């Protein structure tokens, strides 16, 4: 219960004032394993849980399990990939970033996208609903980029390089997400084919 309150309080603090929240966290990043268990895992499981719940309600539990698991692995893989790529990518822009800082910064910038994952419980059969859901995702991605930019400013990265570094990180995240999505999509389809 205490840890749940921590995650909720930290998330609200981040969304209200990203620069202040990140300045404190990046100055003294927590132990990565603890951060992963306490902060990252609960947020990453939001979309997976939502999709699983939706599928159970619609009477397709197996599909829901595959989609939920795939979603969890995709989000977790994206977080790990961006975290590992961030330090050498930041060095290309003459910015020093340690691995613990990278894990924190990538998680915080993905937080809006993870939160929006709860909309996965809504069926997307109605076009307006689908449009609303995708619009929310877009807003979440843009706010995540803003959080990332604030994080680089809090580090601090060179002022003139903050925007290029944010753009480069976004491009890297897009490539990682697309590659993981394709590979996991093929894997999920193969699994469903074998099971059925």
């Amino acid at each position, binding site marked *: 219960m205490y840890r749940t309150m921590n995650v909720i309080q930290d998330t609200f603090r981040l969304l209200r004032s990203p620069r202040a929240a990140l300045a404190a966290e990046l100055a003294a990043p927590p132990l990565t394993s603890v951060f992963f268990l306490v902060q990252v895992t609960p947020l990453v499981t939001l979309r997976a849980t939502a999709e699983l719940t939706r599928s159970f309600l619609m009477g397709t539990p197996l599909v829901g399990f595959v989609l939920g698991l795939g979603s969890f692995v995709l989000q*977790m893989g994206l977080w790990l990939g961006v975290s*590992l790529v961030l330090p*050498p990518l930041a*060095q290309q822009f003459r910015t020093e970033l340690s691995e613990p800082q990278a894990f924190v910064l990538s998680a915080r910038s993905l937080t809006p996208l993870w939160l929006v994952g709860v909309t996965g419980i809504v069926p997307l059969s109605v076009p307006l609903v689908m449009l609303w859901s995708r619009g929310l995702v877009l807003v979440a991605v843009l706010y995540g980029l803003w959080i990332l930019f604030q994080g680089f400013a809090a580090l601090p990265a060179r002022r003139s390089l903050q925007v290029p570094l944010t753009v480069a990180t976004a491009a*890297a995240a897009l*490539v*990682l997400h*697309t590659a993981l999505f394709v*590979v996991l999509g093929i894997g999920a389809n193969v699994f469903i084919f074998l099971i059925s």
Partner: protein
Amino acid sequence: MNTAANASMNAGPIDIVAVARRAYATFAARPITHVAAAAIVVGASVLTVGVLAGPLTVGYLLLIDAQLDGGDVRLDQLWGGFELFSSALITWLLLTGATLTASVFVVLPGLVVALLGGFSFWFVAHRQASPIVALKASWSLTRRHLGSVLLLLVVAVGLNFLGLLVVIGPLITLPLATIMASITFRQLAS
């Protein structure tokens, strides 16, 4: 000039922009050779269901190596990989098998195995390593420079995504990505 270029890039973490620039210059010096080599490697690998993938990949790496050293570059250098046929084939079989096996556990471990074993062909080509030694060396090298290798992979994959937008694009982006990996290997393994 090539030695100086290698030396300047050997200090510290990889400079991905410098690697990309040098890779482009290398490709642009002999574009027909590289496009033809990439087409042969991919085509023959598909036609032989992967049997020739390892040896031809090693051959292409030897061709790139010869050009980076400022030596003569000919398409028939591709067959140099056949002198290391058994090592290259077994390395390919072991890496593919390990990747597919690890992929059973929700795909991600398979990607990790493929990433960690990715440089094994370079060890076969440049150090004439046996399959197990090559895989272990690749594992060790990638773990020591995980961030840099992942950054290289992201750039290479992004490049090939862009290449896929044009139907024949991969014929250019695949050799470019391979040359970038060769330059990075030289820097990280030195």
